[in-house]
């Protein structure tokens, strides 16, 4: 095998190839329909354009999906993230309203801190149900998915609560260094997660528990602590996402805030190449996956899909992306197109990804 072809083979096997390709194709579709789609202009000291909007809009899903990635890596799932986001928003907004000076910076900071702490506690509750009581993750988090909406309704007395705090609304609409603050927060959490998992042994132990729980137990891994940690972290991420969403409208509607975001987040994780069966995870893949979801949302109006078809369109695209990513589906496509591989390179052996370079730190 020549050097260039082996490099190509390595690239073909890179776990991020398909997510990136999917994102690029989606962007190209937009450019074909609207040649100005990628245009970015400077205005009032920061950048404007579709791409910038996609960045900002991707922040909530990206945040939730980062926490979800770790949970999924342990063979779990967290369905309660949308409800937790609603609780975070409800707590923060009622705190801001209840404060002496509604518009002060300290009011915003205190309220957000308080909300995030509550969310970490809620995540820890999920972790408790899963790791100590041994309830199946889908059921354990379903409890808070349903009850959490009720809790956030109770906090806001069932009213749409509007706040007026410029610092709080900056969370969604502010810009730092010409880029949307919300996106930068998501990037910061991505970096933090990468350091947390790849600069400590947490990532390896999470993967070990996800791949073979019994072998990990016999090797002495404290899987209970690890599972607890990832659910608490997922609560933290969901809380941040809830704050960003609330800041975008300066209000909280406990009924609808963060509704179905868990599904988008799970999609982002899957598109990013982390298996729902647990084990190896890719934070970078999740990052791309979240960008893909946000781009898709932007694509629907841009290419003129009627709004009543947008769920259908989304479903079709997601199915296509998942099929393209599946080595099995690709292999069967290849066989159908070219017949049995008699010559040429043998099909790449089923999922044998190169050592995953998950996390932006490596």
């Amino acid at each position, binding site marked *: 095998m020549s050097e260039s072809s082996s490099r190509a083979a390595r690239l073909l096997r890179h776990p991020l190839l398909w997510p990136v390709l999917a994102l690029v194709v989606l962007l190209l579709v937009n450019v074909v329909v609207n040649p100005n789609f990628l245009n970015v202009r400077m205005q009032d000291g920061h950048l404007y354009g579709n791409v910038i909007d996609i960045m900002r809009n991707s922040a909530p899903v990206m945040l939730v999906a980062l926490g979800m990635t770790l949970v999924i890596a342990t063979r779990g799932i967290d369905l309660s993230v949308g409800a937790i986001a609603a609780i975070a928003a409800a707590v923060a907004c009622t705190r801001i309203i209840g404060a002496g000076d509604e518009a002060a910076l300290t009011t915003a900071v205190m309220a957000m801190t308080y909300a995030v702490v509550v969310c970490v506690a809620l995540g820890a509750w999920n972790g408790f149900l899963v790791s100590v009581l041994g309830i199946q993750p889908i059921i354990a988090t379903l409890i808070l998915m349903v009850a959490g909406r009720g809790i956030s309704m109770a906090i806001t007395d069932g009213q749409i609560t509007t706040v007026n705090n410029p610092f709080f609304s900056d969370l969604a609409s502010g810009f730092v260094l010409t880029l949307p603050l919300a996106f930068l927060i998501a990037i910061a959490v991505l970096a933090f997660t990468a350091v947390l998992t790849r600069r*400590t*042994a947490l990532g*390896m132990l999470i993967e*070990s528990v996800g791949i*073979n729980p019994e072998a*990990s137990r*016999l090797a002495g891994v404290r899987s209970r602590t690890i599972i607890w940690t990832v659910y608490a972290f997922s609560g933290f991420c969901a809380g941040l996402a809830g704050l960003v969403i609330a800041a975008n409208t300066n209000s909280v509607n406990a009924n609808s805030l963060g509704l179905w975001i868990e599904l988008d987040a799970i999609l982002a994780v899957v598109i990013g190449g982390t298996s729902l069966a647990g084990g*190896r995870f890719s934070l970078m893949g999740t990052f791309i996956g979240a960008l893909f979801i946000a781009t898709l949302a932007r694509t629907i109006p841009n290419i003129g899909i009627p709004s009543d078809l947008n769920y259908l369109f989304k479903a079709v695209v997601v199915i296509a992306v998942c099929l393209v990513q599946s080595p099995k589906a690709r292999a069967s496509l290849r066989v159908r197109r070219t017949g049995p591989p008699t010559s040429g390179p043998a099909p790449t052996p089923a999922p044998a990804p190169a050592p995953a370079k998950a996390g932006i730190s490596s």
Partner: protein
Amino acid sequence: MTQMTTPPEVVAPPEGERSPVIEMRDISITFGAVRALDRVSLRLFPGEVHALMGENGAGKSTLIKALTGVYTIDAGEVIVEGEPHEFHSPAASQEAGISTVYQEVNLVPNLTVAENMMLGREPRRFGAISVRDMNRRARRTLLHLGVDIDPRSTLDEHPIAIQQLVAIARAVDVEAKVLILDEPTSSLDADEVEKLFTVMRRLRDEGVAIVFVSHFLDQIYEIADRMTILRNGKLVEERMVAQTTQLELVRSMIGRELETLDRLDCEAPKTDAETGVPVLKAIGLGRKNSLEATDLELFEGEVVGIAGLLGSGRTELARLLFGADTADTGELTFRSERRKLRSPRHAIDRKVAFSSEDRKAEGVVGDLTVADNMLLALQASRGWLRPIPQAMRTQLVDDYIAALDIRPADPHALMRNLSGGNQQKVLLARWLITQPEILILDEPTRGIDIGAKAQIQAKVAELAAQGLSVVFISAELEEVLRLSDRLVVMRDRRKIDERVNADVSVRDVLEIIAGEAHPEPQAEPQSEGATHV
């Protein structure tokens, strides 16, 4: 006569010239390059309990799956009541009157007893399922078997033993001619086994041919009439149980001529290591349905070998010593500290290491690299906040790859791509890196090539010489005898003998296992009966 080259002995059917209900002739099955069954024959006569015997990997379950249509036969034929049959699916096999009850009850726990028995062939009235008919019929069948339970109760209200009887009742209800019971007794206590045997005898007397698989020799001698013994995918012989001593049976299953074995005897008698305080002492360690109360002492630098057949309790003992399962009774003392083990961590904190017999399910973390697999136990004990520094990682991994000759010598290779022998070496390294004082190895050389096997044995001997205490479990008696200073023999979930490994031969061990040896004074008395000479 037990040599594989001699033609298998054929025994007359139990009663005169009755023809077999099932005859499997020269069955061969190949998986990839592995020949799982090699021209194996099996005859089942109506009204007999037929024991299918053999160690792990002998081909018992493959043969059963060939008969029940799970596997397709490559060569050979199956004759049912004189007619050749080909079973391409489990349904076809059931159609022919062959029913199977697996070790794990495969019924639906939250349906009623009657629904489970009638699932898929419910009595109907005007097209709708008649619950009343169903319950009545189920009750009749159950009572016929001497099981008095309400068919309307849900299955999971009942203990496993009753569930098993329900499974049998289901099989009987389809008027099975052949009933296959694959290790039905492995999770039953003595009373429950008796209940099962009563049902089995009743069915046998009604003319059903029963295939019985069990690792408990006493049970075989209690219930079975004839047996077929397999080894390494080949037929060894077919015999009448009453005319076979336990020693002959054990020898047939393990498969060496005694004369050859005597020559293979242990090479160097080991030093007597019993000095000072034992590093590990177990008194009355036991667990319900798994291991009867067992005593064990382990001294510094000593290798204690545990010999016994599959299901003898050897693995169960190892798991209790490590806290992989929690003991119901007894106590463990580590040097002078008494300690209950509630999880493997408790054992690991006391410098115990355990390599499970089930490499794939309980050892290998397939999608992680060799390096991560090696460092897993050490990293786990350090906690995730204290990652092993990169330099130390490299050093440890490179050292052990070299010391154990692991191939490929690539720390970044994925564990699942390694061969079994190399995976086993990585797992050994995983524990050696934690610098244990006690190393429990359960079947560390099973299914690995001869070179890797020798390397692992040599490493164990070397470590013991350096002061490590080792509990060594293997189905291969030669290997146990070669490595151990002291020998513990187990059978039927309990320790039946213990002796210093001086001049102990494989033949001696086989005799102990078969219950024909005279135990040393300090050992427990033999189980009663079960010796047929």
